[in-house]
């Protein structure tokens, strides 16, 4: 496996792999197959690929209809349109009847890059996790993206999976790796602060742990790939040990993983929770890597927030 791969690429590959195994899988896209990477499935199984044109609302409701007849639809477009434009369709056509549709949204977050604010969806996790019964997953690398797709097929119900445009380092390519919906992964043990992250921020969290260690601060790192259902037990038990939490995600600090963790900590074991993410602003155009620095969505940003969390301990 390459050192780096975009989670959207891993998604496309996983679909093509699954297509062989499960004949009920159908893939829908809204004229973005080349970008979402559903084109990999399309090439292999053209008869099971349904291009809906630039009409996302119809696409998600069509997917709902297909699922009532035994199909397992994977419906893809950019996160902005899946969670944003088609929120009503995802909620009412798919979520309310709890249908077996997999909403696979790519190009989430700031790392979309040059397309700018209109296409950088920093609100999708917040929107999706308010829908009752919706599983919400934000994988941290290509290995996890593939595993999430495989797990989503095994799960009977609606699942939202967020994929990114940017190539990410592979961090889960180890023998003991096991993906389970709703089960966070403890990436590193620590005693002074708990870093909870998902998506592209997990590798940054591991970097942040190294920087903090140099300053004598011991951080544990939890990969909360599933935002809903959140693994409250793993997060709270670690917070009990460290007494301070920082949450990092490539998303608005309002409503997403930051909020989910703050809710869980507040209700179970109140300790300081500091949020690290996009601070309630729209994105901008620019190369993804530059934007990541611009918005501080990196290890350095996590380190600052971790220190703040520690300083807030009573």
């Amino acid at each position: 496996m390459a050192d780096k791969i975009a989670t959207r690429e891993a998604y496309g590959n996983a679909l093509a792999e699954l297509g062989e195994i499960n004949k009920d899988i159908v893939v829908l896209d809204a004229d973005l197959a080349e970008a979402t990477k559903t084109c990999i499935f399309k090439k292999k199984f053209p008869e099971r690929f349904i291009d809906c044109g630039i009409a996302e609302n119809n696409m998600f409701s069509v997917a709902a209809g297909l699922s009532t007849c035994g199909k397992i639809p994977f419906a893809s477009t950019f996160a902005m349109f899946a969670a944003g434009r088609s929120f009503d369709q995802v909620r009412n056509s798919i979520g309310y009847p709890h249908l077996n549709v997999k909403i696979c949204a790519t190009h989430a977050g700031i790392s979309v890059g040059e397309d700018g604010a209109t296409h950088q969806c920093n609100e999708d996790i917040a929107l999706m996790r308010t829908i009752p019964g919706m599983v919400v997953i934000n994988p941290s690398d290509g290995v996890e993206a593939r595993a999430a797709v495989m797990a989503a097929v095994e799960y009977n119900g609606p699942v939202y999976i967020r994929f990114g445009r940017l190539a990410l380092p592979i961090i889960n390519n180890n023998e003991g790796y096991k993906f389970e919906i709703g089960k966070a992964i403890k990436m590193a043990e620590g005693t002074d602060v708990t870093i909870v992250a998902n998506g592209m921020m997990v590798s940054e969290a591991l970097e942040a742990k190294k920087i903090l260690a140099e300053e004598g601060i011991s951080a544990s790192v939890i990969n909360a790939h599933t935002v809903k259902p959140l693994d409250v037990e793993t997060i709270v038990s670690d917070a009990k040990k460290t007494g301070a939490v920082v949450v990092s995600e490539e998303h608005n600090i309002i409503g997403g993983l930051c909020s989910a963790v703050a809710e869980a900590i507040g209700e179970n074991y109140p300790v300081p929770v500091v949020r690290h993410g996009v601070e309630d602003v729209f994105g901008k155009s620019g190369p993804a890597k530059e934007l990541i620095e611009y918005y501080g969505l990196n290890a350095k940003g996590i380190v600052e927030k971790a220190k703040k969390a520690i300083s807030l301990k009573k």
Partner: protein
Amino acid sequence: MENEKILALQKIATEIRLGIVEAVFNAKSGHPGGALSSADILACLYFSELNVDVNNPKDENRDRFVMSKGHSCPGLYSALALKGYFPATELKSFRHTGALLQGHPDMKAISGVDMSAGSLGQGFSCACGMALAAKLNGKDYRTYALVGDGESQEGQVWEAIMFAAHYKLDNLCLIIDNNGLQIDGRVSDVMNTMPYESKLEAFGWNVITIDGHNIEEILDAFKKAKRVKGKPTAIVAKTVKGKGVSFMEDQASWHGKAPNEEQYNQAMAELTAYKNSLGGNN
């Protein structure tokens, strides 16, 4: 066509209307106007056209029906109750807290409901998915969807119209309940959607325009729709909102309002008198 069958369906349509008034009166809310306008279509669907089995409501080979104009569900519920999917007494607790019959169709809870609907424009797209699934699965069931003329102002309806023609869904039948009224008034005044015929034909559809209260025309349109291959068929059903209850007919104000007791008694009396006038056994 045998007169007996037509008469029987007219009686069933009237039974459906009685159920609609019963449900909405007991709920003290709901949408009688568009339910009453679609009652004859529902009678023809559930008591002649649809290949469905009340004892096997999830049969994968059954025909599908989607009430995309979900607010007209008192009509659907009334038809399903008559068909035997659940006891008719459930109609009296329509919209009540904790009751079976939700304000808009809920496929998870209510036997016989093929799709949850209510947010306008979505149900018809779902029906497109069901029709496409039949093609993919090599099954010969048909899918029917009832869309309101006001509902067709939703952009999603036209996305679906485009989609169904593109994928040549000749196993799909769209019925437009063209009663000409919506909450704010005449469809032609609020946001004109007509004419349907030339628009749908331009999108590549086969179009049949009928009197949506004429049983013979409804059944004939279903028959013709089945014979058309390579494109979907739309039946533009000209109807009267509130049909069958004199004071509700062609009144936008009866879109989403329940009758009071006096109005309820009058409506039930009118419908019962009409049913009796059709003769035969009750």
